[in-house]
């Protein structure tokens, strides 16, 4: 480094891009060992952390004479006592070519929820299998979840090759088993790598013990896999996050570009009003931009004074999302408390918050076999229909107001939502929208509150105040229909 001009070096280093990846596998697959190896070999484990680690390894390690990398990664006290990772933990390292964020998630059966959490922002997933056992139920489950989350790149890391004598046939068999299974899922890029996390084969350096393997070492692949095409640059979606009015002359709509590209001068439409205007400027702290793309955060000003609030969306008029109150989605239940079908949940979708009602659970998915379980095929009963922790199902919803969405597989940003329990405020479930549904599929009676003021005998002078309250309730996601005229 001394010979390099430091400014030049830093200018270059600051331009590196970012890859977020998920690791999935069980404790036995050597997942923590693999992550520890990546961090260690990229020299990011600091000396003092190593000292503490060696001390801990001797005291309570499970790796014999080796350093137990798992101890370095398992943060919380309770987990250290149990000897398993129980939540998502984030790790950071960088090489000369890229910066990495690892979401380290456990593969333990009851923790589907954590893997879904860790994977929601990932560009890539590493799925570990033990070379001795090959593709097992858990491998299928992890891969299914990865495809559900719309992760485009998967690395099947066939670990512990040292324990099968680096046998090419063992590796080939696992790869063909995996590819056969994965062909039914929508994952565009799959790479299989034989490695030994414990010894370091094919992790950072290509191993001499696998001369038959022609692909890259794991780190080499992570550094070079192209991800800049993975975002949706086609469909401009701009959910308004915050209306900025610093003075009478400036009114801007702040937000993050969810997808697509917007340029100064573009004609845009505000949803749900349908009003049309042109982009006057794209403002940032660092000056105005000619165009903006995901995931940039900007402030857009318009040529015309049109009213747009938080939760509403700017789009191009010739490329609009679905605007509807009814849709179906793949839902993952994240709450210890099972679903109460009669509850009205809050739904948060982009920057919108409203109420949502479950109309129908079409089927649940057995995540181990990917089999569909429904009342129709006799696999579910009315009692076993409501969703429980870690269950995945296809669910039909009605929302309190119109949402502006796209199918999740086409647009991760406008296809995702969370469900919030109105009493506990917990995030009960998360969903990935499939599409709108026909109204005939729906429960038709309107479950949302109606206040018929004349019928209730309320004097007309109070109408305005009540209307204001209803508007505020709607803003908070509780739509109330306010009727002020006798029909």
């Amino acid at each position, binding site marked *: 480094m001394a010979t390099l001009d430091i400014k030049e070096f830093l200018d270059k280093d*600051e331009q590196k891009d970012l890859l977020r990846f998920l690791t999935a596998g069980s404790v036995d697959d050597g997942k923590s060992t693999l992550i520890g190896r990546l961090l260690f070999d990229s020299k990011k484990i600091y000396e003092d952390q190593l000292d503490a680690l060696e001390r801990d390894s001797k005291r309570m390690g499970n790796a014999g004479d080796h350093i137990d990398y798992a101890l370095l990664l398992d943060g919380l006290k*309770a987990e250290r006592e149990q000897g398993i990772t129980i939540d998502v933990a984030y790790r950071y390292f960088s090489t000369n070519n890229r910066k990495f964020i690892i979401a380290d998630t456990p593969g333990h059966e009851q923790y589907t929820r954590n893997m879904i959490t860790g994977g929601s922002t990932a560009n890539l997933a590493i799925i570990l299998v033990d070379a001795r056992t090959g593709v097992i139920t858990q491998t299928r489950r992890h891969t299914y979840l990865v495809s559900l989350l719309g992760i485009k790149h998967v690395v099947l890391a066939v670990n512990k090759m040292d324990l099968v004598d680096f046998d090419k046939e063992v590796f080939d068999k696992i790869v063909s088993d995996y590819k056969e299974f994965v062909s039914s899922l929508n994952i565009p890029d799959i790479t299989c790598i034989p490695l030994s996390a414990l010894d370091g084969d094919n992790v950072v350096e290509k191993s001499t013990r696998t001369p038959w393997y022609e692909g890259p070492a794991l780190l080499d692949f992570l550094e070079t896999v192209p991800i800049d095409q993975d975002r949706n640059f086609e469909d401009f979606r701009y959910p308004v996050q915050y209306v900025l009015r610093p003075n009478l002359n400036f009114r801007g709509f702040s937000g993050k570009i969810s997808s697509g590209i917007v340029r100064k001068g573009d004609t845009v439409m505000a949803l749900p009003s349908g009003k049309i205007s042109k982009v006057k400027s794209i403002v940032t702290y660092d000056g105005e931009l000619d165009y903006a793309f995901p995931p940039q955060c900007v402030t857009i000003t318009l040529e015309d004074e049109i009213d747009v609030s938080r939760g509403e969306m700017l789009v191009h008029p010739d490329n609009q999302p679905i605007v509807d109150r009814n849709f179906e989605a793949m839902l993952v239940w994240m709450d210890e408390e099972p679903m109460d079908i009669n509850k009205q949940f809050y739904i948060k979708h982009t920057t919108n918050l409203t109420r949502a009602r479950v109309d129908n659970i079409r089927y649940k998915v057995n995540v181990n076999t990917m089999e569909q379980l429904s009342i129709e095929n006799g696999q579910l009963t009315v009692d076993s229909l409501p969703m429980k922790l870690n269950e995945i199902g296809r669910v039909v919803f009605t929302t309190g107001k119109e949402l502006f969405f796209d199918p999740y597989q086409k647009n991760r940003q406008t296809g995702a939502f969370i469900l919030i329990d109105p009493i506990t405020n917990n995030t009960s479930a998360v969903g990935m929208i499939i599409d709108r549904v026909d109204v005939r599929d729906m429960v038709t009676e309107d479950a949302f509150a109606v206040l018929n003021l004349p019928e209730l005998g309320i004097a007309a002078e109070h109408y305005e105040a009540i209307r204001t309250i209803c508007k505020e309730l709607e803003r908070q996601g509780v739509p109330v229909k306010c009727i002020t005229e006798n029909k």
Partner: protein
Amino acid sequence: MSDYKLSHLQELEAESIHIIREVAAEFENPVMLYSIGKDSSVMVRLAEKAFAPGKVPFPLMHIDSKWKFKEMVQFRDEYAKKYGWNLIVESNMEAYNAGVGPFSHGSKVHTDLMKTQALLQALDKYKFDAAFGGARRDEERSRAKERIYSFRDKFHQWDPKNQRPELWDIYNARVHKGESIRVFPLSNWTELDIWQYIRLENIPIVPLYYAKERPVIELDGNLIMADDDRLPEQYRDKIQMRMVRFRTLGCWPLTGAVESNADTIEKIVEEMMTTTKSERTTRVIDFDQDASMEQKKREGYF
């Protein structure tokens, strides 16, 4: 397609701005906690960016333990004035008047009363329902698992086993009255990212981060700077001038300096890239016990 590509710093910046705006839009009474350190300096700049050309719609609050370095307090006041921030400064005056300090009461009691309790009192006083903090996940093991929106009960406590799932960039902002969240917009930044960003954006930081000849004493393996005359008598003749700088800033008796010649931002970044010690080794409060940070967090400390 390279026209539509962000660097890792630009991507982190966008993520943080999104979080800051989201909190401002969904909470009634947010506050940004300001420690005057390098991470706070970055967080404050990100807040300024989030609402430009407007003003940031929430105040800054500094919990003053009364043992901060003089240069920190000076920097704080000048920065807030220059950039037009509404600055709140709060201290645990009861404990201060009772004479609590690190030399007389030890680091544990001092930290609990002058930092943790002072913070909790201030949060209750103003009834803030969201408090931004500059913590990063790469700082310490228990933080690696904490959510960006970290839910706190009525007693400001964190329950690591009962965290809300947090997916995509959709944050659950719903809390009952009296409950609150701590928000960590810098969660995904590393120490190196912070320094690179400070360099790139030319962000003002406290001069103590730059190496300079300073009066220090060696105390239990740490280099402690003699910042004011509250340094106990018995240490005074041990003061020596050394070329040092600080990697983290806090209460001066509890913050170790490192020997360094890094007197420019480039030299600091270079030092960061080649260092073999993690930054928390310079924070004396961490030596108390194993998993001590998790304990503090459960009690309401950041």
